[in-house]
């Protein structure tokens, strides 16, 4: 049994389910024409509908429906041609209608699956129960005034997709991989920008522990986690807390908890007894959402190639390792950069150059791929120059460093610095002759049977050439001469 946690009294299995709220990428809100732009001044993106003025009515934004369907297709889920918007009733100051329009019994997307890959190379299929569309609430600001709260309704009515997983996750590592993979797919699809700091993607995690093979334990729900690290920390803390309670003979309360980012711990937000009765019922202001198969098929036809497919292609067609392919497909932009840089070239060599040199340099400079001073074409040309023997791999590293620094093309740098690889056998012969002349004692030793000295002669010749001599030719010519 994998992923068991050894406690004082025996092993525990961790069971995790996640509810991810992903803000739909759209110009306008789910049921009103207001803008969804992030960073607007307080209450600038608020319509009469968003503020729930008397007599105002919601009208579904078709663009958001398309995005939800697209997301469903991206996780190979069942698309429900019939879905219903319900009202989830509760009072809060930043919920102007006194209810959130959501989908309860009939969500737009049904069962799907997401495959995650862990560091050890194992893959796991995580079931997705459903995706439904719902409105976001506004924001309460409690720190602007000593006794009053301020309300910003810019987010009120923004479309969210709630993506609900099955309780298939078994460790914080899996949960981390799940949210990363989900984020990657959403970004490939362009249905959510995945920006966790801005709150475009946030997760509620349901955690319970049980003895292996036993029925599910009582779960807690930790709400509103907005980074991969916080998700993993919150799970680790909950697992530890729950095991400790259970091993001391205690009971887990089904409750909602909050994560404290400062301490990495969770604390009770409300107990089951305080849980709202949301009084869900179909929103009488909206007709059931009826989609046609043609509508779904049209969206399906426009689906971009997704990371799993691209990865499989990179492994089978380009001969990349599964690991390299994973790294290159995690982000849509990375895959696109790689495809452009490697097109018509040595695919494996480009992959190596990206994952070692380029990512290394970007990391060091604190830059993202989008800001890379080296373009896909620039990197491709550099690799070409290695492949055709114009420069050696060793020299190429220096050239790359210069390219990254100055943004100039590889050809110019090689030309200017005279870094072209020497492949002229006459010139290399002369270098070898000089090395052998200067090390006659070693030549004698070699000829006397000390084979290991061959490396020494190669090194000396390369050094003399300033690294520019073609290493293959140096090897060959040296062998011939030393036989001599």
């Amino acid at each position, binding site marked *: 049994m994998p992923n068991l946690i050894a406690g004082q009294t025996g092993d525990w299995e961790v069971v995790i389910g996640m509810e991810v709220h992903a803000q739909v990428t759209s110009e306008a809100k789910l049921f009103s024409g207001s803008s969804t732009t992030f960073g607007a001044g307080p209450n600038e993106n608020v319509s009469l509908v968003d503020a729930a003025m*008397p007599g105002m009515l919601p009208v579904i934004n078709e663009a958001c429906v398309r995005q939800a369907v697209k997301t469903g297709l991206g996780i190979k889920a069942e698309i429900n041609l019939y879905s219903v918007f319900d009202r989830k009733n509760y009072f809060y100051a930043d919920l102007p209608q*006194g209810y959130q329009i959501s989908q309860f019994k009939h969500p737009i997307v049904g069962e799907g699956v997401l495959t995650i890959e862990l560091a050890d190379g194992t893959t796991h299929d995580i079931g997705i129960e459903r995706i439904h569309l719902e409105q976001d609430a506004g924001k309460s600001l409690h720190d602007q005034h000593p006794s009053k709260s301020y309300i910003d309704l810019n987010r009120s009515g923004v479309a969210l997709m709630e993506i609900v997983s099955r309780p298939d996750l078994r460790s914080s590592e899996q949960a981390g991989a799940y949210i990363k993979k989900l984020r990657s797919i959403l970004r490939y699809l362009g249905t959510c920008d995945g920006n966790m700091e801005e709150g475009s993607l946030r997760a509620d995690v349901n955690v319970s522990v049980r003895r292996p093979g036993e029925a599910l334990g009582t779960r807690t729900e930790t709400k509103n986690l907005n980074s991969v690290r916080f998700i993993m920390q919150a799970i680790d803390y909950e697992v530890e807390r729950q095991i400790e309670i259970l091993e001391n003979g205690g009971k887990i309360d089904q409750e909602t908890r909050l994560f404290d980012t400062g301490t990495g711990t969770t604390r009770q937000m409300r107990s089951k007894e305080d849980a709202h009765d949301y*009084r*869900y019922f179909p929103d009488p*202001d909206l007709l059931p959402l009826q989609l046609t198969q043609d509508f779904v098929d049209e969206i399906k036809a426009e689906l971009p190639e997704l990371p799993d497919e691209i990865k499989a292609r990179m492994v089978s067609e380009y001969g990349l390792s599964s690991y390299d392919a994973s790294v290159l497909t995690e982000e849509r932009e990375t895959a696109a950069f790689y495809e452009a840089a490697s097109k018509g070239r040595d695919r494996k060599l480009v992959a190596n150059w990206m994952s070692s040199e380029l990512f290394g340099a970007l990391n060091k400079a604190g830059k993202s791929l989008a800001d890379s001073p080296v373009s896909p074409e620039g990197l491709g040309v550099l690799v070409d120059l290695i492949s055709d023997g114009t420069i050696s791999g060793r020299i190429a590293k220096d050239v790359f460093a210069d390219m990254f620094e100055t943004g100039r093309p590889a050809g110019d740098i090689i030309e200017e610095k005279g870094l072209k690889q020497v492949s002229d056998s006459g010139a290399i012969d002369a270098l070898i002759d000089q090395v052998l002349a200067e090390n006659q004692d070693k030549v004698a030793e070699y000829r006397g049977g000390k084979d290991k000295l061959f490396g020494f002669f190669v090194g000396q010749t390369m050094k003399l050439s300033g690294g520019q001599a073609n290493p293959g030719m140096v090897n060959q010519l040296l062998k011939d001469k030393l036989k001599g």
Partner: protein
Amino acid sequence: MENYLNLTATQARTALQKKEISATELTQAYIAAAEATKSLNNYVCMTADKALEMAANSDKRIADGSAGSLEGLPIGVKDLFCTAGVETTACSAILKGFVPAYESTVTSQLWRDGAVMLGKLNCDEFAMGSANETSVFGPAVNPWSANGEVDLAAGGSSGGSASSVAAGSALMATGTDTGGSIRQPAAFCGVVGMKPTYGRCSRWGIVAFASSLDQAGPFTRDVADSALMFASMAGHDAKDSTSADAVLPDLQTALQASVKGMKIGIPKEYVMDGMDEAITALWQQGQEWLVEAGAELVPISLPHTRYALPTYYIIAPAEASSNLARYDGVRYGARVEAGQSLDDMYEATRAAGFGDEVQRRIMIGTYALSAGYYDAYYLKAQQVRRLIKNDFDEAFDKVDAILTPATPSAAFPLGVKQDDPITMYLNDVFTVPANLAGIPGISVPAGFSQTGLPLGLQVLSGAFREDTLYKVAACLEKQAGFTGQPPRHALAAG
């Protein structure tokens, strides 16, 4: 002035076109009539300046030949319709002082067609009531009376609308009908009230009571005026997802057409114990009139009728409990600062802002939607609603229209039913099924009670067949020849 206030809208329109009167004169007469009948408490807000300005513009358009279909006709607006720049309260304390920045779709279409706005009319708080007694402004009073002493209910919820049209203080008026709120007061006040097919008139900008039942409609002095005003109010609105994109049938032709050969259903379930004898007699009379005009009577059964009221009193409060959640004191309307927490403020605001009947329905609705009760109440009610609709669907396979009484009684004195909500709810027994089924219905004044109070007959037709409705209504109107001026008409008062 005398002539002006007695004109129907159709007659006034002709007089305006012929320049026998001006829109300004007509409007002045109505403003004066509203003043003269103040004791009826019909207007909760008069917009005389706005009315005169609109009338002046109407006169210009009449002069330059660009007059609309309702040009220069002064109308009153139920206070449930949001009117830009004019206080809109739904006759509730919780919305006192609320001035919308927007105009409801229905009223903006009326203004588009040249109508002149006189002011906002009294109604039950959030349209919840059958006697206009739940209004924070107090009840509208019926201009009719049995003995000239006791104030009678104008009906509800659109009491002010019915009363003002009957009393000559509005030529026409808008209403809304969720369970009979147009047809019942129309019957009580002796005017024509029509509830269109659900989806005909946009609900955008109308303070919501029960979204799946609410429908705006006209109050008028006769059937032709009703068709005229309805045509202006109706139409698809992209801002209301439940608005129907359906072509309006030819109503003018329908008004002239004969009912000859039409099949009129007479539902056996619309007989109530203790029903006013005059109403039973009038219903009988109505059937005879239609037969005389060449229609054929068909006995029909609407077997689930007796479940309509209980079904309605689950669904309407359930939707209302959610629709009224937005009146929380946070963004607009009244707020009562109390206690330390947000919940304290909510409780104090809503306790002070909502009247008893509204609070009762919020509680009923909240209960009906609660976990553990939803299936037994709300879901069951939706299933029964479907059966009621099926009853009508089957009936309209056999008949063109259905004739029923509009109300089980004539107008009753104000105050007598206030302590007994159930008796009050029974007022809507004949009108509620049409709302549940989404079909149109019209109440036509057709006779009098023993004590001289107006009584109405109700015609129901299939969805989107308002032409059929008006055809039968016009016939009844002609045959009944209902006339008479209520004792508290503006002309009597003035």
